[in-house]
């Protein structure tokens, strides 16, 4: 043992020194240690972190689809009759008007869910005050922004469904040409992710009917709202891809 000079805390060999670290609410399970009450601040932070990870993953899915889109678009294919190569990407007449309306719906829904998010953030902040006996803030019946967003979300999905119908009407099916394959693929992949957001909103709405504490519901609405904004941005991206890189 004699030849070996052991580490001291702070040396890098032993791994990390005794750096003071402010308590960050970590190491808990979302409750205050002394009172066993739920710590909503910690839970919100945790949920948002999870959301960032989810967004990273969904982005990777669409990044890989985009790269496939661009690669496939540039590929030549062999024509058996003329024995030559040509580009088979093909063109597709998209129902632009309908898609623009859908885009508008989605952007408006992004605004409405932001309204819902801000409202519930305020009520969550006021919840402790409201629970003080004798204090009564006016019970504002706020406009059901979340409900409106759900409707708009369904509207967007139905609109996309109609866009598919129009595509089929014009003779563009999923296997008509690579371009149409990607159009169906990208819109469907986006719609599936967006439907997930609608389910999350329905769930948040259901918990409000169950009279769950507003602080907990606020977390669901907050995270869903950020996810929803991401869905809107993602759609704008897909829309631009289809419009400019076709």
């Amino acid at each position, binding site marked *: 043992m004699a030849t*070996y000079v052991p580490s001291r805390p702070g040396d890098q060999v032993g*791994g990390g020194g005794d750096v003071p670290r402010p308590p960050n609410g970590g*190491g808990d399970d979302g409750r205050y*240690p002394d009172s066993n009450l739920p710590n909503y601040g910690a839970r919100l932070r945790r949920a948002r972190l999870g959301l960032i990870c989810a967004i990273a993953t969904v982005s990777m899915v669409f990044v890989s689809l985009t790269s*496939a889109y661009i690669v496939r678009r540039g590929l030549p294919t*062999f024509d058996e009759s003329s024995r030559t190569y040509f580009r088979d990407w093909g063109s597709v007449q998209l129902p632009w008007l309908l898609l623009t309306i859908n885009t508008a719906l989605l952007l408006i829904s992004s605004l409405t869910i932001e309204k819902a998010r801000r409202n519930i953030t305020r009520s969550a902040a006021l919840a402790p005050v409201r629970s003080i006996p004798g204090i009564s803030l006016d019970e504002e019946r706020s406009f059901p922004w979340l409900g409106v967003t759900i409707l708009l979300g369904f509207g967007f999905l139905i609109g996309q469904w109609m866009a598919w119908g129009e595509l089929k009407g014009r003779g563009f099916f999923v296997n008509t040409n690579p371009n149409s394959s990607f159009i169906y693929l990208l819109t469907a992949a986006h719609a599936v992710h967006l439907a997930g957001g609608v389910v999350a909103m329905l769930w948040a709405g259901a918990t409000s009917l169950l009279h769950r504490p507003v602080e907990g519901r606020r977390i669901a609405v907050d995270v869903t709202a950020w996810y929803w904004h991401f869905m809107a941005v993602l759609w704008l991206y897909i829309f631009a891809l289809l419009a400019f890189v076709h």
Partner: protein
Amino acid sequence: MATSVTAHAHAGPQGFIRKYIFSLDHKVIGIQYFFLALTAVWVGMFLSLLMRIHLLWPGVTLPLVGDIKPETYLSLLTMHGTIMVFFVLTTAPQGGFGNYFLPIQIGAPDMAFPVLNMLSFWTTFVAFVVIIAAFFVSGGAPLHGWTGYPPLSALQSAGPGEGLGADLWITSIAIFCLASLMGALNFLTTTLDMRAKGMTMMRMPLTVWSWFITAILGLLAFGVLLSAGILLLMDRNMGTSFYVPLVVVNGQIMGHKGGSPLLWQHLFWFFGHPEVYIAILPGMGVASQILSTFSRKPIFGYKAMVYAMLAIGFFGFMVWGHHMFMSGMSPYSAFAFSLLTMCIGVPSAIKTFNWLGTMYKARIRFQTPMLYAIGFVSLFVSGGLSGPFLAQPVLDIQLHDTYFVVGHFHLIMGVAAIFGMFAATYYWVPKMFGRMMNETWGRIHFFITLAGTYAIFMPMHYLGIAGGTRRYSQYTEVAYLQKLMPLHQFMTYAAIITIAAQFIFVINLFWSIFRGPKASDNPWESTTLEWTTATPPPHDNFGGVTPVVHNGPYEYAVPGAARDFVMQTDPAAGTTH
């Protein structure tokens, strides 16, 4: 000085189903993952045994299995690779041990999202059931190898097993991707947000670092495999042509045209190379932890170890092209991929030297976990050294798709990662089940397995250099390969012995879980947080106490300390505050 803050203690759920089946407790979920992987590894091993037997005696009819036709051989190979890579190498180190010990090692009561954690396990389980189902549908299991290259994998009529069996294979992998993504999200959030007071990033055990970096790789890689799989399903079932060019099968022109099989290869290997690090990184973490503990010395170069793992993860995303040198890629890209691949050798070498440095002049305790950790280093070096050869496009022209590659990745990914799991099992079973495993049988198991795996996989390198192609079901009809048959014989006998030796392991495992001598709270005199709590840990891990951390993870042989190790929760070591 207060070392801990008292908190509430949770009672665990009662009732069998909530407690053991749909449990939200990360420890139970970790054990579930562990046993799922243990089941999968036996299935995978059985398939490999059948393959090895078929290579020597292509004509024999086996009991239970019947005739092994060439296409049967290919489905054995496909299912062996897929089950091993996904349901063993990705499942046990991360889902199993990571789930169990990451929260405890950072001082958290559970994962950040326990319900999601339970969902990831059960989704993995469904994926496993779906892939096993591929054996039993008409046509049987697919033929296209674990890498699933189209057009073979993309055409229903390309062969038996490429019908429903292949659809199940892809579906299983897609489900597995979802499960891994949920898991990765949970690991990342937990590590970033749930560390106990005083547990800075740079005080995390290297195991935690390895699970954390693995989760980052998983989060970025599995989404790509998922989209690649969806494109493949569409090509197979919806008549699209993403991957399939104009092809003729049995004299019939297929409906596809213009797709590119290389598109799949790019997407697959963009996932595939990070995946090999997903398999090995947790092993690196465990090896570091165990080498330091049993050498009774701090890990040599903790920070270098962390940065090396980060560098490996980072470069891991930029080298996928080294699997495609023979695909007709431009020599300029091949050069770039080759260079970047060689770069990964640098952090890998740093890690190796640090492991050796940790053991240098130490009073090593040669107990079973340590033997396996040393075995890990040995296999990592032997398997890793062939990498830079393969990374030369010029050499790869000869070596690609030969047994040389099979030898390379089995040593490094197959067996090294498995040695990491063995090390982890012998090291942590006392904590998980409260009983020690048998030392003598552990050592016997180690020596047979070490010699056996070298005997199986080393000759593969010679075979490959001599031109022995991989994925052929029979070598007896080809003149120049015929001469290599003695090597094949040797490998098959070695495989039979090595597989037989694994019974020692399972018997030791189950016997110890039920009958082994009771383990104390800290039988190895380790320093990290899991050894500060009861054995096995209570439902909330620390029994109503929130640990507070004052030390780095590997404070062994600290001068002036009462013992030769200082726990992470002990008052700050060697200082006077």
